[in-house]
Structure formats: structure tokens, C-alpha cells
């Protein structure tokens, strides 16, 4: 059987008629007892299971997923990776994720197609440019690569923008993180799943949590649709459904669930080789490797668990996109979808032990969880292995909502999520 992915193994399998590939991950029957359980087979949960095995040597781990792995927000985002945040705490956590992303294909032996094509944020007025420059200073002090671009530089970078005199959103300049870009989101999920499985993690799909086993005031495992599993430490990374599981465990979270929509056009030849974000239209656009224009925008304004999205917000996003790129006006939309995101008052993640001892949480990434997957996994794994915070996750504990020490990135970096 061929296990390792390489040019040589591809060549050999080509000669052998592609018959020797083994499945990317095992699908074992659940065991009654594990050293640790991770709930949620999205990027964060899969990464946590992988780093438990890789960084801490804990391999008797169950990864439980209600549906199929990568079928939630991991497969529903716009695949953007960046780390240009305002507060040092945020720069540390997103910076960790970004540095791990850079070496992830080699680490997992799985091509996640990281494309560091740059992430450009536009400024649509003189005051907008001044604010951008001030934010940029903070980002540079945090040690994150980021530059201010003049109008001429933005024009060279995005020739298809609406540069006409009647543009509703004229451009005065912008900021760019050149090391940012995109990665293939399915590959991130599958790569972590395959690497975790090879280290001994049991990946169990179609396995929904029905209840927590609580004994002596501690979480001792979970009851699921595929039987009962016990472990002294359980972690959950379930994004928009965090409140549902918290309800079963007997506590509440500072989370509101909203639908976040995105859509892609039919594929066209390469016309946009960077990610463009407009703070004023609230729209961001990139072009996938297949050629589709990938379009994202603001949250729906109605609390929701329906993975569809509402029309008024989609209409606003597309109107903004068309104002930015009138040249795309004749493209057909191929697909539109929504993911349920976990929005927290200060737009920063929640990582730490929950009010139920033995149960740890990773949630609250809101609209920006994909870019943080390697860090969210590393930090949840650290908590599950040691029972203690990593220095980088400490500021993001649930206790900040009682102490008042919030990390308000919506106000800080000006990007709503």
C-alpha cells in the first residue's frame, strides 16, 4: 500500500494503475474509553486531535463529528489566511496560526495549496487612509508584515477595480499583508484528518453528542448516537453550535449564532491575483485557482441556525461587489451558501476550561476561524494535555467577560467578525 504522498509515489501508482493508495484516514468503531475526546470534525477539532498526538504524545484520542469532517464552516469559508491584527494578544494567536500554515503542507504531507498572494485592504477616503495608517503602525509594532500602499500601487495591483470618475467607492490607497493569501480549505481538513489518523486518532463521523457524562461535578465523557465514550478530558470546537452543546453541559456562553454567506461565480481566466477587502462595502473578493470569483461579505442581521442565508444581505454584498468590479457584472453565480458562525461581543475567540470542569472549549472565532485553525488546534491540544493555558491562549479565557478585560478586535482592526 502507498502511504506517503510524493512525486515518486504518484509516478509509481501511475504505473500500477492507481490501485495501491490506502484510504486517507481509518474509520474505526468507537471504543468505550479514550485519554481525550475532541468534539467537532472541522479544522479546529481535527487540528486539536493532530497536535494532541504530535506535540503531546497522546494518541488514544477520539474525534467525534456529527456529520462528515470539514462539512461545516471549514468547507463554507472564503479560504483567506492573514494575521494583520491590532492587539498584541490577537497578533500572537493569529501569528502562530500563520506561521504554522506556512509549513503545514510539509508537516502533514498533504498539499493545502497555500497561496501567499497578499491580502489588500482598501481605503476609500483620506480619513480612511489615515485610520488605515494608524492601524498599520500597531500591526507593524506587533511584528506582522504589513505595508501602506499609494493609490498608484493599488491601481497596478488591481487593474480591474472601478477606477472611473463616477465610482461610488473611490480608492485613496490601501494596506497589504503580502504573506497573507488563501489555502484550500478542504485540504486543510483532510490533511489534518489523515495525519491525525496515522498517529492513532480515531476519527468517528456521523456521531452526534446527545449528552455529557457528568459525575462528581466533572465531565467524564459523552453519550453519543454511536454509544457512550469516557475520557477525563473533553474538548469542543463546534463554532456556531457551541451554545447548543453548552446547554447540554449546563452553562451559557457569550455567543450569538448568525449565518455568514458567501458565493462563487462561474470560472474565468485569471484577472485578480490578490485578495481585495473593502471596509466600506463590507465585501471581499478573490479568485480561486479554478478561476471562480469568491465573494464574501457581512453577517446576516438575524440570529440563525439555518445554513442558507437571507436575501437582503446577499443583495447588498453583490451590489457592493459590482460597484467595486463592474467588469464582473455579466458573470453568473454558480453557488451560494451560508455557515453558522459564533459571534462574541469583542470579536475574539474563547479558549479555555468551561464552567464544567474537564470540558474545554475553542469557539468564538466568528467570521474568521479558518485562518486560525493551526493555532486553535495547538492551543486546545495544550489545554487538553496539560489542563493549563498556553501563554498565547490565556488572554482568551472565558473569564474576560467577568473581569471586563475584553480584546475588542471589531474596534481595533476595524474588521467585523
Amino acid at each position, binding site marked *: 500500500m502507498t502511504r506517503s504522498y510524493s512525486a515518486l509515489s504518484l509516478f509509481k501508482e501511475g504505473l500500477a494503475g492507481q490501485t495501491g493508495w490506502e484510504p486517507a484516514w481509518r474509520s474505526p468503531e468507537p471504543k468505550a474509553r479514550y485519554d481525550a475526546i475532541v468534539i467537532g470534525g472541522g479544522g479546529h477539532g481535527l487540528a486539536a486531535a493532530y497536535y494532541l498526538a504530535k506535540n503531546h504524545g497522546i494518541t488514544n484520542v477520539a474525534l467525534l463529528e456529527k456529520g462528515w469532517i470539514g462539512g461545516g464552516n471549514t468547507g463554507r469559508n472564503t479560504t483567506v489566511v492573514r494575521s494583520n491584527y491590532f492587539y498584541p494578544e490577537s497578533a500572537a494567536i493569529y501569528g502562530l496560526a500563520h506561521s504554522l500554515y506556512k509549513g503545514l503542507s510539509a508537516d502533514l504531507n498533504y498539499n493545502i495549496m497555500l497561496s501567499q498572494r497578499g491580502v489588500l485592504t482598501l481605503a476609500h477616503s483620506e480619513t480612511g487612509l489615515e485610520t488605515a495608517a494608524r492601524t498599520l503602525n500597531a500591526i507593524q509594532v506587533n511584528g506582522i508584515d504589513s505595508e501602506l500602499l499609494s493609490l498608484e500601487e493599488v491601481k497596478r495591483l488591481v487593474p480591474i477595480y472601478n477606477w472611473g470618475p463616477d465610482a461610488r467607492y473611490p480608492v485613496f490607497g490601501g494596506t497589504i499583508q503580502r504573506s497573507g493569501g488563501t489555502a484550500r480549505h478542504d485540504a486543510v481538513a483532510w490533511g489534518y484528518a489523515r495525519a491525525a489518523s496515522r498517529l492513532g486518532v480515531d476519527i468517528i463521523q456521523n456521531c452526534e453528542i446527545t449528552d455529557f457524562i457528568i459525575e462528581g461535578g466533572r465531565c467524564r465523557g459523552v453519550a453519543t448516537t454511536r454509544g457512550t465514550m469516557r475520557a477525563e478530558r473533553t474538548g469542543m470546537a463546534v463554532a456556531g453550535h457551541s451554545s447548543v452543546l453548552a446547554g447540554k453541559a449546563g452553562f451559557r456562553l*457569550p455567543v450569538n449564532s448568525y449565518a455568514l454567506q458567501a458565493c462563487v461565480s462561474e470560472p474565468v481566466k485569471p484577472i485578480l491575483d490578490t485578495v481585495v477587502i473593502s471596509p466600506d462595502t463590507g465585501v471581499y473578493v478573490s479568485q480561486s485557482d479554478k478561476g471562480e470569483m469568491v465573494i464574501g461579505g457581512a453577517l446576516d442581521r438575524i440570529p440563525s441556525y439555518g445554513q442558507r442565508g437571507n436575501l437582503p444581505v446577499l443583495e447588498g454584498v453583490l451590489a457592493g461587489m459590482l460597484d467595486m468590479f463592474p467588469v464582473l457584472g455579466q458573470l453568473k453565480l454558480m453557488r451560494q451558501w451560508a455557515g453558522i458562525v459564533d459571534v462574541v461581543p469583542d470579536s475574539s475567540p474563547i479558549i479555555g476550561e468551561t464552567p464544567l470542569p474537564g470540558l474545554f472549549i475553542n469557539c468564538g472565532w466568528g467570521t474568521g476561524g479558518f485562518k486560525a485553525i493551526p493555532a486553535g488546534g495547538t492551543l486546545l491540544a495544550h489545554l487538553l494535555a496539560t489542563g493549563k493555558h498556553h501563554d498565547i491562549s490565556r488572554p482568551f479565557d472565558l473569564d474576560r467577560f467577568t473581569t471586563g478585560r475584553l480584546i475588542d478586535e471589531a474596534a481595533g482592526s476595524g474588521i467585523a467578525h
Partner: protein
Amino acid sequence: MQLFPCPFCGPRDEAEFHYGGEAGNLRPDGREVPAGRWADYLHMRANPKGATREIWVHVTCGEFFAMERDTVTHKVAGSVSLGEAEQQP
């Protein structure tokens, strides 16, 4: 486009409404409110999947009201102005 029922104006476009919060989240009273209770009031939410009761405001007429709806199907079960809601048992 979904229609929401304003108790004062009748069915109107969803874009005219603003979400206010979960119903029944009352501000704690008095000087000696502990930090945990404030955190509960300010931040902690049930965030239910399914049936929910919420406070909304119809921005165009200024009516605050309670609306019962489903967060998965988005079906609205009904709405009642806050003055009438207080008179209900």
C-alpha cells in the same frame, strides 16, 4: 425577502427591523450586583437552536415588541408589543 409582523404596522420587510436581544434578559437592580451577575446580563446568552422569543424594534415606526420565531426555519409564530406582553400572565 421575509416579512416580519410589526404589532403596530403589520407585516413589513425584514430589512426594516433591528434585533434587540433575547426576551427576559432583565437588567439587575441595586448597587451590590456581583461581577458574575453583570457578566450574565451583559454577555451570556441561551442562543437557542429552534424556538426562541426575542425583542425586536421596527426602526421605521419605533415600535419595540417581542417576537416568537424559529432560528432554524425562520418561521415566525407571532409578535406582541411590549406593553401588551407585560399585561400577559
